[in-house]
């Protein structure tokens, strides 16, 4: 079966092509956030201008023609309304034109499932970390395949926190990578560390670290903010893993590209004989490939939607998404 997937929940418009679980192509166009962050209307405009081109590139590099498409998946949510609408409308147009089935996909579930696929994980505890989200998910098989939320941030996502801080330092923000670079050789300074059971919070940490700009060395601040935030994530994941009796750890989402966080999780897992699995970076950043991958699986399970019911849900929770 050949299925395409479309993604536009935030700054990336992506189209991917999948055939029987294998990703044939994964093309994207990314809006340049610059120093302003995202203005939803502007980003949506960027997506609509690039949609046709990305779609064409995805088919071309997959080596298929549109006639071979047997199903279309798109990101239903969560995400920014105006942005989500672009992939949704594109997907509806393609599905209608080709007369094929259409599958609304949960963005977070797509990240988690593609990580499970590439990481070869059967039954993981999944740390989903991106700009807007930070959640600890557990794979559940009853009453049907879905993810439950075991823990999550009380306020902002860890990526957003690191990137905002990077912006304050006038560094180029991207999934905490600039902080990671500047953290080298830094020493630990005490900053607020907030873990409540399996939930965590980052605003106190961000505020304190921002206050200290100018009063402490940049490398020390970068090292400490990253160390504190990631230690909190590791601790919460560790606790969730033991509570859920899981033996595998997965990590997905934009911040999963951060090497330091992966190293810490791997180290944590070692103590419990648990392995760490994740997808290649192109699938941790937002992309259409993961949407296509999950859409194909859902189609095969008979989960799809009437085209008129294919709307967007800005606040679509991952635990409300049925996957199989």
């Amino acid at each position, binding site marked *: 079966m050949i299925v395409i997937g479309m993604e536009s929940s935030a700054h990336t418009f992506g189209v991917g092509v999948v055939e029987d679980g294998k990703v044939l192509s994964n093309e994207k166009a990314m809006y340049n956030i610059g120093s302003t962050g995202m203005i939803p209307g502007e980003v949506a405009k960027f997506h609509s201008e690039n949609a046709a081109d990305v779609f064409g590139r995805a088919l071309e590099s997959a080596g298929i023609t549109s006639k071979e498409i047997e199903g279309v998946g798109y990101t239903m949510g*969560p995400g920014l309304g105006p942005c989500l609408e672009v992939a949704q409308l594109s997907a509806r147009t393609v599905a209608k034109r080709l007369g094929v089935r259409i599958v609304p996909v949960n963005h977070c579930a797509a990240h988690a499932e593609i990580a499970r696929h590439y990481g070869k994980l059967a039954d993981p505890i999944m740390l989903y970390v991106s700009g807007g*989200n930070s959640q600890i998910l557990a794979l559940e098989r009853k009453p049907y395949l879905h993810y*439950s*939320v*075991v823990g*999550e*941030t*009380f306020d902002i996502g860890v990526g957003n926190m690191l990137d905002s801080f990077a912006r304050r330092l006038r560094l180029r923000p991207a999934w905490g990578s600039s902080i990671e670079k500047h953290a080298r050789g830094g020493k*630990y300074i*005490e900053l607020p*560390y907030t*873990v*409540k*059971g*399996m*939930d965590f919070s980052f605003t106190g940490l961000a505020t304190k670290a921002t206050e200290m700009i100018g009063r402490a060395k940049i490398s020390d601040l970068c*090292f400490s903010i990253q*160390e*504190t935030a*990631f*230690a909190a994530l*590791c*601790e919460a994941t*560790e*606790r969730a893993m*033991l*509570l859920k009796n899981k033996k595998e750890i997965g990590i997905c989402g934009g911040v999963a590209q951060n090497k330091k966080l992966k*190293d*810490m*999780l791997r*180290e*944590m897992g070692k*103590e419990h004989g648990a392995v760490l699995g994740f997808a290649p970076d192109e699938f941790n950043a937002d992309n259409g490939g993961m949407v296509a991958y999950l859409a194909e699986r859902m189609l095969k399970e008979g989960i799809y939607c009437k085209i008129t019911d294919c709307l967007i849900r800005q*606040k*679509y*929770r991952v*635990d*409300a998404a049925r996957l199989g």
Partner: protein
Amino acid sequence: MEGSEIIGIGAEAKLYTFKMFDVETVVKERLPKKYRAAALDLKIRKTRTKTEARIMFRLSRAGVRCPRIVALGRFSVYMEKVDGTLLKDKRITDREIAESAKILSRMHSLNVIHGDFTPANLISDGSTVYVIDFGLSEITQSDEEKAIDLLLMKRSIKADLYRIFEKEYAKSYSESKRILNRLKEVERRGRYQVRTLI
């Protein structure tokens, strides 16, 4: 250690039995975590051990059913042994969940929050329920923190059990109305509003 037996390795500590002056004690020793920076690791382990001991002492004195402290080390708390089964490892009865609610209401009336009040930290010996693991406990008057204690329990048990839990909590704690209202607020504020019960 001689004569000691490891009874469990938790997320942050090792538990082992230790005979001290013929009294069977359980030692909770916080282990270093290699994944975090040494300075942060030291700070977390030291403050948590100290806070835990202080809180357990306060609770025991007030008659809350938790292990009594026998001795204190730098990263270790020595406490009386409690026999029984963790609620997470058994089918929780209505009476046990009601008992748990009474414990939490008593703790909250003493301005102690647990920080991880789930079936993984409650032990039943068949007739009595005990609360353990005060590693994330704090002494605070904050309604918010108390509401989060309830939220953690709400997310860890089935909806019908939680209803019993909340009813008993409401009955036994004079400030419960305010805390339960706060819980609603916390849940509303929780990202994307709805959080499904398991």
